[in-house]
């Protein structure tokens, strides 16, 4: 049963989810509930939405929004649930800001999105393991044929690389027993994996494939994944025509000039040279193999 129609807010920022094509029978889980508009949008089109939200502060804010919007077909759970409760019931998984959430997992060295038992077996605290663990949880929660939607900002590739490198350096410096805890080889390996997953689209694709996902589609997103104005499927570049999005330029000639320069640079990078690997954000959709 869908929610009754009222004059609700404009949910245009959730436009990326239009790629999914929700069904009114779908049961959806949103990991992190990063974008409230996305959560509300999914609730409007699906049977039920479950939000997994680690921060109590954010949960309270989201709950207020849901009351305002009269959203009733949803539930919010904190992040420390046990993954064994997933019984392949979800038709779709939404993960906005995928890389940031991965960073959160590593930074806090605790399980938010998957069982601690799995983590304890994996003594090598690498991004590889974290990424796989995260996606394994997602995979188990999906029904065969279910969809996954990931969005993330490209600019964070550098930030995350820097932050994780710092974490690794700190661990290396502070550990009492270097040989037992973290060897120099492991340190190098983690840096390599970061480069592999975060600096390369192929790395993420490989990660998804190795976790049982198929029909992987990648999209370049402009100007960002928080409010997309242009989304281009990377497998259809020949059929898509790229025109730079209008950057919102407030009053002031400098800002207008800056927006104009940005448009020209975008036209050069994306229209002329088709360097879509440099897109500001990405969306990835995939399906669990049936």
């Amino acid at each position, binding site marked *: 049963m*869908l*929610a009754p*129609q*009222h*004059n*609700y*807010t*404009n*949910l*245009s920022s*959730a*436009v*990326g989810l*239009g*790629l*999914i*094509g929700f*069904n*009114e*029978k*779908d*049961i959806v889980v949103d990991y992190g509930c990063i974008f409230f508009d996305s959560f509300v*949008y999914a609730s*409007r*089109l699906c*049977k*039920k939405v*479950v939000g997994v939200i680690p921060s109590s502060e954010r949960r309270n804010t989201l709950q207020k929004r849901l009351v305002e919007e009269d959203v009733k077909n949803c*539930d*919010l*759970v*904190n992040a420390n*649930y046990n993954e064994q*409760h*997933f*019984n*392949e*019931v979800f*038709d779709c998984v939404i993960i906005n800001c995928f890389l940031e959430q991965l960073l959160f997992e590593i930074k806090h060295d605790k399980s938010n999105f998957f069982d601690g038992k799995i983590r304890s077996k994996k003594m090598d605290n690498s991004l590889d393991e974290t990424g796989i663990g995260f996606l394994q949880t997602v995979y188990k929660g999906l*029904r*065969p*044929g*279910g*969809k996954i939607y990931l969005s993330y900002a490209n600019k964070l590739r550098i930030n995350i690389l820097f932050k994780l490198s710092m974490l690794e350096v700190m661990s290396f410096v502070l550990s009492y027993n270097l040989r037992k805890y973290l060897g120099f080889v492991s340190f190098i390996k983690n840096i390599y994996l970061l480069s592999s997953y975060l600096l390369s689209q192929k790395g993420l694709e490989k990660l998804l494939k190795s976790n049982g996902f198929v*029909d992987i*589609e990648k999209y370049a997103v402009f100007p960002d994944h928080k*409010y*997309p*104005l*242009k*989304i*281009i*499927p990377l*497998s*259809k570049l020949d*059929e*898509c025509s790229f025109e730079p999005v209008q950057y919102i330029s407030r009053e002031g000639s400098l800002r207008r000039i800056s927006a104009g320069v940005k448009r020209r640079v975008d036209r050069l990078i994306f229209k002329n040279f088709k360097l879509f690997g440099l897109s500001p954000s990405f969306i990835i*959709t995939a*399906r669990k193999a049936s």
Partner: protein
Amino acid sequence: MASLPHLLLQPEKPHDITIMLCELITNNTHNNNIALYKCYNANKVFYRKTAFSQWGNKVIENEKKGYDWFYKDSETLTEIRLKKKYFYELDIPEFRGRRFSSESIISGNEETIEMIIDFYKGRWSSNDIFAIHGDLALCNFVIDKNNIKLVDWEHFHYSDKKFFGYDIINMLFILIYHESKRTFSLNKRKLDFIKKCYIQLIEGVGNSNKILEKPFQNSKDYLMKYADRFLVNTNIYKKFVLSGCSLSVLEHFDSIVTK
């Protein structure tokens, strides 16, 4: 805090899941709360407009009325489908033919413009109920030889036949705007062409017409007076160049075409 097992319903029989490859063309243009996707489904390509609010639903439903009016008695209409989900979706086939940029100018398009005026005179006169497209511009036409398709009916509304010509005058003004690079200064050859278009448009039109005596001023007056019919969800001056233009400029073009 509810525990997860209680939250989840018993798994139902899996329903069909469709994932289509889509390109987002525009999103929330002029705050219309609508996204336009180009969808690739197997070998078929079509466009989908999706609403993201109740306002968007209203606009999409209105657009369907426009297609119904324009493609009445045409097979094309069967391919234009409105799905009334919580947020409405309108699927429109990809029409084959020549397309035009949103910043099209007069130069190089003279024949097409004359052809469109002819088409307008025939098509708009033949329909029992008079209507206004509301955003007629070269970029909304797809032309394959003599087969003319018209898209983007968001601002469609029924009107009185005495406002015949509004859409063409609006289109000419947009062309002037881009041709002159927003200065409204055109050379004699272009001005002569605009006058030629006007003469082509008024031929055979009755005296009761409320647009064509002072075409540019009257069109602006119509737009401002009936702004609510255009279903614009933003400042109308930002949406239509005609609405933001000064009286002196409109008087200038009126005097050129009518003298």
